[in-house]
């Protein structure tokens, strides 16, 4: 792999090696530029994926070398419901390894629907929310969705329906099996007149571009893939970036500041290496792809005389409009075995309520996805839903329910609200002595109604599918997590947004924020495919602008 001296001014520093960072590194290096990728996590099983750890206990309690997710004990964060509360220690965590969340995610790869980019125009303003149109249209992004699906390797079925995003080209790979939970979706859908679609997944169903197809091992979401079937940045992007001889991936590099010169242009990034030594990597431009919470935190940490409120934050919008991802659902027991522990996590979605409908009396929509219990310890610790937690009854329930359990998990809207935000905790420091991330969030009342709606629909579907027992999930809004979006929203007006429609910071000509941060609205909480499409689009424009001298 190419290695650069930190004193060498590279064309781009990319901060974060996840869904967006992998694409930016690959596109920019293939485009002829020198790139250093700074990733706070480790290598994981990069390049030796066959060694991916499938031991459930070790996966949940990893060594530092095996770690795939951030550790709230080190990447400390705090949480509060609203700005009048004192924040308490939080459990916000996200993918943190070369490849980021794409190494461990379930792999759902739903596109946004065309109208999701202009929802404010469709449904109007909603009091107490910052619902707004994106400065781009689906038509502008569509070629990049296609590019992302083919370059990453997505399995799925193109469906001609207003409930499914139109595609100029089919998926490169046929869908994965829908599993028994998906078959039960079909049973319910036939009775209720609903539409079931095989989940588009970033897991290859057959051999593709030198990688082998999914073997349905079942240790999927939360685990790294040992056959390279999950189409992560680590297997689909970084190997290509490395082959250019222009890209260096530098893991265990925790960035504490993006530095600027007197003219207010970024000059590189200061990071701690694995020995906590401070290193400055010089760069002509910086691409910030640290995720929907850490990107805004790093901007807020990067204070200077030119940017006293944090870098690229003249609008004061950095960190605001956080959408961390709500969920709603139910679980059930069926007469016969589903064996959901085999295969991918979710094979199918019901999409009939994807759009908001004023007849429901609130703003909100989403998709219901089918799944079941996956890993033994997690299932057994939780135990039967309302049964005994030990003893003969506990054992009986474990035996009866383990493979007969189905879960509906609904991925739903969450309104952008100005006061829901990431900022710096005034008291708590992380392991590196930097102010910890503070998350403040309470979902909009319409979001709560939407969760109740999807919980009720989940129960109805499970009953229609013939469940012998059904339990509704409790309604709780989220407190953080890897689907967080919206904290550096894009827009045409520098007073109300952080980046322009090409992800360039309004305030800083050679700084780009490319990840879930730039989402204006959250979609239906399936963000990764849109992050990937945005990254391919941003890379295209950055390459054009840079080659035309716009950054010189």
């Amino acid at each position: 792999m190419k290695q650069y001296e930190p004193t060498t001014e590279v064309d781009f520093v990319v901060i974060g090696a996840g869904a967006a960072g992998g694409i930016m590194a690959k596109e920019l290096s293939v485009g002829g530029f020198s790139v250093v990728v700074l990733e706070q996590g480790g290598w994981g099983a990069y390049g030796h994926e066959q060694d991916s750890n499938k031991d459930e206990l070790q996966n949940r309690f990893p060594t530092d070398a095996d770690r795939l997710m951030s550790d709230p004990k080190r990447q400390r964060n705090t949480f509060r419901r609203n700005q009048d509360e004192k924040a308490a220690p939080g459990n916000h965590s996200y993918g943190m390894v070369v490849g980021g969340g794409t190494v461990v995610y379930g792999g759902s790869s739903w596109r946004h629907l065309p109208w999701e980019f202009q929802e404010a125009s469709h449904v109007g303003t909603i009091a107490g929310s910052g619902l707004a149109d994106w400065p781009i249209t689906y038509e502008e992004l569509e070629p990049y969705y296609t590019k992302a699906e083919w370059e990453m390797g997505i399995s799925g079925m193109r469906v001609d329906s207003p409930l499914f995003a139109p595609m100029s080209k089919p998926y490169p790979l046929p869908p994965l099996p829908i599993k028994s939970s998906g078959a039960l979706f079909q049973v319910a859908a036939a009775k209720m007149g609903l539409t079931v679609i095989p989940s588009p997944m970033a897991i290859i169903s057959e051999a593709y571009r030198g990688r082998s197809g999914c073997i349905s091992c079942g240790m999927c979401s939360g685990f790294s893939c040992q056959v390279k079937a999950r189409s992560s940045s680590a297997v689909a992007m970084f190997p290509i970036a490395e082959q250019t001889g222009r890209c260096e991936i530098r893991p265990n590099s925790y960035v504490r500041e993006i530095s600027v010169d007197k003219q207010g242009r970024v000059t590189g990034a200061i990071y701690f290496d694995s020995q906590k030594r401070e290193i400055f990597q010089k760069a002509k431009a910086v691409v910030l792809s640290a995720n929907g919470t850490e990107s805004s935190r790093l901007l807020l940490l990067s204070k200077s005389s030119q940017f006293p409120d944090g870098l690229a934050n003249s609008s004061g919008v950095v960190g605001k409009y956080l959408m961390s991802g709500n969920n709603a659902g139910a679980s059930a027991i069926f007469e016969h075995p589903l064996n959901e522990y085999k295969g991918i996590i979710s094979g199918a979605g019901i999409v009939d309520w994807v759009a908001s409908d004023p007849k429901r009396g609130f703003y909100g929509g989403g998709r219901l996805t089918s799944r079941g219990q996956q890993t033994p310890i997690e299932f057994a610790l939780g135990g039967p839903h309302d049964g005994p937690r030990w003893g003969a009854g506990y054992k009986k329930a474990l035996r009866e329910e383990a493979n007969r359990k189905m879960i509906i998990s609904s991925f739903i809207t969450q309104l952008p609200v100005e006061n829901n935000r990431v900022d710096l905790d005034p008291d708590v420091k992380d392991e590196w002595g930097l102010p910890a991330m503070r998350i403040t969030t309470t979902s909009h009342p319409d979001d709560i109604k939407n969760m109740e709606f999807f919980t009720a629909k989940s129960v109805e579907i499970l009953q229609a599918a013939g469940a012998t027992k059904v339990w509704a999930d409790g309604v709780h809004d989220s407190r953080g997590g890897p689907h967080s979006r919206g904290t550096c929203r894009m827009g045409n007006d520098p007073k109300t947004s952080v980046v322009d429609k090409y992800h360039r910071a309004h305030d800083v000509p050679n700084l780009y924020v490319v990840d879930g941060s730039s989402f204006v609205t959250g979609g239906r909480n399936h963000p990764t495919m849109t992050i990937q499409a945005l990254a391919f689009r941003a890379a295209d424009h950055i390459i054009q602008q840079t080659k035309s001298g716009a950054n010189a």
Partner: protein
Amino acid sequence: MSNRSRRTFLKNSVSGLGAAWLASNWPGILAAQEHAQQMAAQNFPTQFAFFTPEQAAEIAAMASAIIPTDDTPGAREAGCVYFIDSGLTSFLHDSQALYTQGIKDLQAKTQELFPSAGKFSELTSAQQVQALTAIEKTPFFTAVRNHTVIGMFASPKHGGNQDAIGWKLIGFEDTMNFKAPFGYYDAASNSRG
């Protein structure tokens, strides 16, 4: 419960659920497994790393009440007490006092409820359930319950789940390579076309 071929030396606490379950760190496990394998290879005689034989009998009886033996094997046959015992010298080190005191309290509760009895492990199954029900809200019981469950369903290489007893109980096949149809309903759906 004679010779145990596989012992593990885990680190850090796995006593919690939820966030703690996801967040705890667990270094040193690989070295610990290597050590366990060496011990197995040398055919070490059975001995407990932390418990006295009497304490081990009490914990084994508790584990057996938590996941009983009926028409199928339970925590006793799975060797959950060995998982916990080795844990207490390493990853559950912080729980040593909880266990030592907890066993004393359990014996006191046994005496209180059944004055003629000696030890918890000597009670009848029904009496054991009664005694544990009396302490089931205590941190000690919660810890033993969770550690028994983890030992029962973790990979056998960690000392419990011997002969994959836990996995067999819940119908979990450890082959890590499956082909659809996976279950009854997708098979039925396929046969309908």
